[in-house]
């Protein structure tokens, strides 16, 4: 019963929006706004053929590599910086500066430095997506519970075990919040990085459709991006439920008390 209700909750608004769209485009002849039926047709025509291999696949590959690198670098550097007060004092002002730079403006610079290949696109994704993870990890490590840290010290926990059983799990709620933000940033930067000097990719394809007046195709690319975002967020939620099960249980009990 609850599953059915959840499912209804999920699809209710999209159905209403589709209905509004359908009604408002009835008899519509505008070149720039396709009807729902036309869009669905175009969607399957456009993205199930070789474009999936030539555009979607490389885009998703770069997105995944970018996200994984961001997570690894963000958590790794965050653990290090969060663990040493002097390192934090030394780096944090500078990190804030770099974080404040919008990554798209770095694209021309990176193009000059490392060319226009996949490395450039992945670099742009990482340069934007790493910050929420890095800063949240630093904050998570810094706000470690004192009693828990004392407990670990009295039991003579070594460095590796401290990271694995104490520091990393205790910072995990904040790390996951950082990753969640990073996912949407990574998706945006994936598209933007493909709009410069590219020959393939989702961003490239959408711009190309627009310039060649393939309007329904352009719209279908935007829909595909939205779907990728939804799927990413769904995978993230599954992972979070698995990794932070203890945290949600603890919070529920605290709130009930």
């Amino acid at each position, binding site marked *: 019963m609850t599953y059915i209700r959840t499912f209804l909750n999920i699809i209710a608004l999209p159905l209403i929006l589709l209905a509004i769209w359908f009604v408002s485009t009835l008899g519509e002849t505008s070149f720039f706004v396709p009807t729902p039926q036309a869009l669905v047709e175009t969607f399957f025509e456009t993205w199930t053929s070789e474009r999936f291999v030539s555009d979607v696949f490389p885009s998703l590959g770069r997105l995944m590599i970018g996200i994984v690198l961001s997570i690894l670098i963000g958590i790794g550097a965050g653990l290090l910086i969060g663990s040493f007060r002097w390192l934090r004092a030394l780096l944090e002002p500078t990190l804030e500066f770099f974080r404040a730079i919008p990554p798209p403006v770095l694209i021309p610079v990176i193009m000059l430095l490392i060319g226009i290949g996949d490395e450039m696109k992945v670099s742009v994704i990482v340069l934007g997506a790493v910050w929420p993870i890095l800063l949240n990890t630093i904050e998570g490590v810094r706000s470690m519970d004192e009693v828990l840290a004392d407990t670990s010290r*009295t039991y003579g*926990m070594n460095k590796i075990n401290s990271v694995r059983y104490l520091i990393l799990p205790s910072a995990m709620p904040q790390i996951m919040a950082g990753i969640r933000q990073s996912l949407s940033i990574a998706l945006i930067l994936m598209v933007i990085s493909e709009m410069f000097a590219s020959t393939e990719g989702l961003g490239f394809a959408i711009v190309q459709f627009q310039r060649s007046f393939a309007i329904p195709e352009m719209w279908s690319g935007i829909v595909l991006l939205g779907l990728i975002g939804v799927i990413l967020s769904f995978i993230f939620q599954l992972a979070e439920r698995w990794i932070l099960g203890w945290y949600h*249980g603890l919070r529920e009990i605290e709130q009930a008390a």
Partner: protein
Amino acid sequence: MTSEHSQPTNPVISQSGVQDTPDGRIPVGKTMPGEEPMLSVQNLKKVYHTDGGDIEAVRNLTFDLPKGQLACLVGPSGSGKTTLLKCISGLMAPTEGEVTLHGEKVTGPPKSMAVVFQEYGRSLFPWLRVAENVELPLKNQGMDKTARREVVAEALEAVGLSHVPKSYPWQLSGGMQQRVAIARAVAYKPEVLLMDEPFAAVDAQTRADLEDLVRGIWKKLGVSVLFVTHDIDESVYLGERVIILSSSPTVIQEDVLVDLPAERDQLETRSSQRFAELRHHVYEQIQLAKKGFRPEDAVANANA
């Protein structure tokens, strides 16, 4: 140490049960005659440096904890009990003086010491299950898996928690969580067990059970226990000895031998006459401490 140690009688409360009022016979910073001093605190002083000036939490503390003794440290609130315990456990460096374990100076948390904190909710790893919490220090020591499993099962059995190894700590009641923390300490097999007001946050009935549990474990393992509490009844019921701390800056107000029978019972012991006398005496001393009475003044008066 000195010749005073040759007389095994309680310097303050004589065996006849007559209580002495505070006078020159109170030993300042003197320890009970011990068999084999295991843990030794000498002239310990701790000053916190803050922006608003220095705060002297502990002025001068000296006492020994012999092997296998269960001693309670009791003092008015704000008497630096937790500071003292942090210095003893090596979590904090004293400003002056030193703590030695088996004659060796404590500079960091010693291997043979376990600490049970008051905040059970914050001292257990919420991301680990009960058995994993108990197991972690052993894993860290490099004990192999089968041995670990056995020790963990034994420790959980000892605290009466064999039925919940797979639960998370936060799914348990406060008293049960503190049992997990005790099981973890027991499994670690320390020589000295420090307990920092471990039952201050649990209800009275649970507390009585936990007190008996601590005495049972102490007897079974032969471990030295230093039990910090602000509860006078608890200190007398649990301890073989009660060390009364003065108000801050802390010195030892008095060191009392608890000559109750070894077998203690919540009903029998607590209603015995001797318990009442000891409790009365400790209570009196705490009241004196709260009023600002300091043992060094008493000595000065007696010598004058």
